[in-house]
């Protein structure tokens, strides 16, 4: 029951990873599906740098290429990306 996590820009740089797989089974069940907040909490257990990076103000979360709030429900096969505010153009 994997999802793909993607990290970009300063976040990718701070954590030294750009992509990883996360097993949803550890944090969710059919009765209580995981949301973005639960995924963040699970990733924050990886260490202080992860906690700091993922709880910085203005962090953007995109689920399957759409910006979402932390209450968005995450399902198997989803792609969840974390990144700082965008600065294109």
């Amino acid at each position, binding site marked *: 029951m994997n999802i793909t996590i993607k990290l970009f*820009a300063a976040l990718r740089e701070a954590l030294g990873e750009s992509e990883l797989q996360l097993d949803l089974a550890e944090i969710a069940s059919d009765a209580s599906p995981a949301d973005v907040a639960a995924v963040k909490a699970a990733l924050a257990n990886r260490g202080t740098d992860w906690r700091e990076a993922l709880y910085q103000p203005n962090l953007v979360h995109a689920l399957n290429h*759409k910006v979402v709030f932390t209450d968005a429900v995450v399902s198997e096969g989803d792609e969840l990306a974390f990144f700082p*505010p965008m*600065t294109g153009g």
Partner: protein
Amino acid sequence: MAAEYAELIGDQPGAAVATFTGYVRGHAEGAAVTALELEHYPEMAQKVLMTLGETAAERFKLTRWRIVHRHGSLAVSDSIVWVGAVAEHRGEAISACEFMMDTLKTDAPFWKREEGVAGDKWVAQRGIDTRRRERWQEEAQ
């Protein structure tokens, strides 16, 4: 740019065509910038820019539009972004370009990293860009 313009207007140009091009600045906050690295999230960028163009087309009655955003390593004076809009009336074509630029600045997954003599630095989102973006949401309500 010439090829982009030709592609934008096609065989039957509309009455009004507006374009905007953004280039890499040679300075930022008083310090010299020697190059720009543009990171992006390819799949999401593609979708966001496509949706943005379609939204602009509907909102401003465009007959044609184009958005081209570069990524990777850019030098000072290189173009970063090019948008073009074709409409029946000039107000719509011009507003569509402004709308596309204001929206992609805050909504398209690209991140600028400026390289300078003092080292590299991720560019922070500017408050004015957020406000310019919000203006269009107010108008749409």
